């Protein structure tokens, strides 16, 4: 115990473009049960109030505080300093637009994703307040919830080889979103509809299968299973399309 921690933190404020991005060193006496939430707030309140980072729930629920901690994207609020070496290097998540220092703009990225994936239940049925709700098997409800646990922290996107190379790749969080709706009996979209969205190189066929998305997911979502499931489903849809085209042609 009683270690002195050295933080090397990425600093850049886009409002002062003449100042170049740099790493800044801070030291802090470690206290018991310290998390990066506690540590970063102490640094800001006691040493440098210009330090920019994001926290909201500080309980691993909201996904605000994704950052690269000693080389790995993770939620800062559930990172305990006791699990880290004395030298802690903090960088903002790559891929996303930088707001300042450790803060990145996941909000705009994910809202754009809702439109790309059309992230809502597509149904022609209207709600009738006098009617009993449509029944659903509890096991199906639990499967949907399992995929809905995504907190949109952006760690899977930041850790993704394809997303790092191309801006238009949907990434695991978006593909998981499609899997969530494909599973939901209330959504009337067909495989063909989903194929229009993800049956291409910026969708499911852009995934190189490097598995980092699942490795870094703080909610331990079964991302690889879902990507595999979609790849098969979309592969079959593609084959059917090909078959339909060739039989039309003949």
């Amino acid at each position, binding site marked *: 115990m009683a270690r002195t921690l050295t933080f090397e933190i990425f600093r850049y404020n886009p409002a002062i473009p003449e100042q170049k991005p740099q790493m800044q060193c801070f030291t802090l006496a470690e206290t018991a049960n310290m998390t990066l939430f506690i540590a970063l707030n102490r640094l800001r309140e006691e040493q*440098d109030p210009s330090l920019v980072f994001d926290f909201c729930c500080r309980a*691993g629920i909201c996904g605000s505080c994704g950052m690269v901690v000693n080389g790995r994207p993770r939620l800062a609020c559930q990172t305990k300093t006791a699990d880290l070496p004395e030298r802690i290097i903090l960088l903002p998540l790559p891929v996303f637009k930088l*707001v300042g220092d450790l803060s990145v703009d996941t909000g705009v990225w994910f809202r754009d994703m809702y439109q790309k994936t059309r992230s809502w239940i597509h149904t022609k049925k209207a709600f009738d307040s006098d009617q009993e709700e449509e029944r659903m098997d509890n096991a199906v409800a639990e499967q949907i919830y399992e995929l809905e646990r995504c*907190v949109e922290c952006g760690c899977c996107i930041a850790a993704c080889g394809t997303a790092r190379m191309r801006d238009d790749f949907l990434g695991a969080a978006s593909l998981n979103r499609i899997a969530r709706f494909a599973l939901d009996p209330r959504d009337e979209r067909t495989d063909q509809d989903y194929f229009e969205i993800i049956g291409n190189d910026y969708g499911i066929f852009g995934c190189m299968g490097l598995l980092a998305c699942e490795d870094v997911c703080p909610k331990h979502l079964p991302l690889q299973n879902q990507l595999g499931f979609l790849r098969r489903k979309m592969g079959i849809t593609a084959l059917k399309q090909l078959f339909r085209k060739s039989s039309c042609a003949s």
Partner: protein
Amino acid sequence: MYTHNTDLLVIGAGLSGERIAVEAAQAGFSVICLSIVPARRSHSSAAQGGMQAALGNCALGENDHPDVHFADTVKGSDWGCDQEVARMFANTAPIEMRRLAHWGVPWNRVVAGTSFYFKGGEKFEKTEAKEKAGLITARSFGGTAKWRTCYTSDGTGHAVMCTMDNKCAELGIAVLDRKEAIALIHDGQKCMGAVVRCLRTGRLETYLATATAICSGGFGRLYAATTNAIICDGGAAAMALDTGLVPIGNPEAIQFHPTGIVPTEILVTEGCRGDGGTLLDVHEERFMHIYEPQKAELASRDVVARRMLEHIRAGHGVPSAYGEHLWLDIRHLGDEHISTKLREVDEICQNFLGVDPRTQLIPVRPTQHYTMAGIRTNKTGAAYGLKGLFSAGEAACWDMHGFNRLGGNSLAETVVAGGIIGRYVVDYLKNTDLCFSSALVKAELARQQERIDDLMASRLGKENVYAVRKDMQEALTEGCFVFRNAQGLQRCVHILEEVLDRAGKIGLASNGLGANHELGAALKIQGQVRLALCVATAALARTESRGSHNREDYPDRNDAQWLNRTLAYWPQDNRAPKLEYEEATPYFEIPPGDRGYGGGSIIPADAEKIAAKTMQNQE
């Protein structure tokens, strides 16, 4: 100048805000939702328990009815609620749960057949009916008469938030994050929108709207220890108070929880104590039985919290870098119990403390949890004092919770009130033609820019905002916590008055440029201290104990004098709030009685007066 025009401006894109937005957008109105964080990160998403609604689908909810839900709510409020509002809520809740199912919430459903459940450590059997299989089920929560709490596993708030935000995306509603409203634009009669600081660039923008709804959640961050997310800082409530026209309803009505972990104050469930967990002091000895020989650790939430604080004050707290705390011990419950029934507690301890509760003690202390207090509105959600201003959810005092909120009622309120108030907002928009004065807008914008310039140049002083904030939080925590008395409250008010002076003399230590946090904190600190003064002053004035407001020097519930609601105003240039009172409810469906828990006796109100206000049995 960045100026945006819209029919409806929603400040806060949590569940109640987005629910109102959906209602307005579906009626064809333009809507902009502003949020400090991306909508799905709102504090709504942290509510894990569920939403109360009398659907009566599950076996132990059989024969449930909105009447029973209403009765639970009124009793829970210790007769402090508006019964007309509680009735609207209880009747509408089941329909709203079904609507959410239609929109995409993966509610847990009834599974037919026999299964087991635990109550007070004992095992019972229940059988779910075949004909109910697949309907929305419910769990037991918050000491209600029936199992009534609809849920999605351990993440109800998160799941409903996802669905609501998806609905907003479907409707094309502009949900803008990293936007913080810092002042309302009004002419003394009507609200016309808000001046907003962009948290990406630091620039000011103005949003002009025919109707404005504040749905910014509670203000737990006025306290040093709270379970609330860090955005629940009362900034928007203070902004309403700052108009001098809009009152805070029942500011003294605040709920606490005995066991938040130290540091970070994440909740560990009371189930730990229910299952046999014990509380230990610095000597690792039990103490609850000294104060409460009968119930010891199983005494009610408020009593346990009070005794914990008493024991710490008597010098038996465990010192730590984060202040004194006590220990929660569940080691003796064993690996199997901890791994299955207390899995969530296990995960919190491992993830946020690095503590293994099988072999180590959990540091805990009482912590602020929920604000029944809020922007006072009428039953339509319209705020007192300014036309065109609405409020809903924890931010509002609508007032279905009175002096104590039931578990599962707050999360349900967000969507149920959001739906009801959303329809009233639509009515208002249909019938209102608003003329904006550009001079007024420019003047407010200039006033806010001047505040920023003053802070950045340290023109008014050199006080450190974080130090001032800490002193406010400590004053409120010390003097206006679970149990209150005149001496402590007077001291608290006195300290807060000094803190308020200092809050007017803040100067930034940093340059304040761009997405600067210090400037954001400095812009709201004066309003926060005023809000804290409303809480302490109202608590000092209310010389009775009701629900979560516990006065050691006035232990009785005094219906003869205090069957009312506090309205705290902050007239411009005042140094203290002005308190007014109004009747708690327009009529009684259930006349005041004993809620059957919490202790204390009742000084009854005049029987004739009560009878005159009590509804006769409906035909």
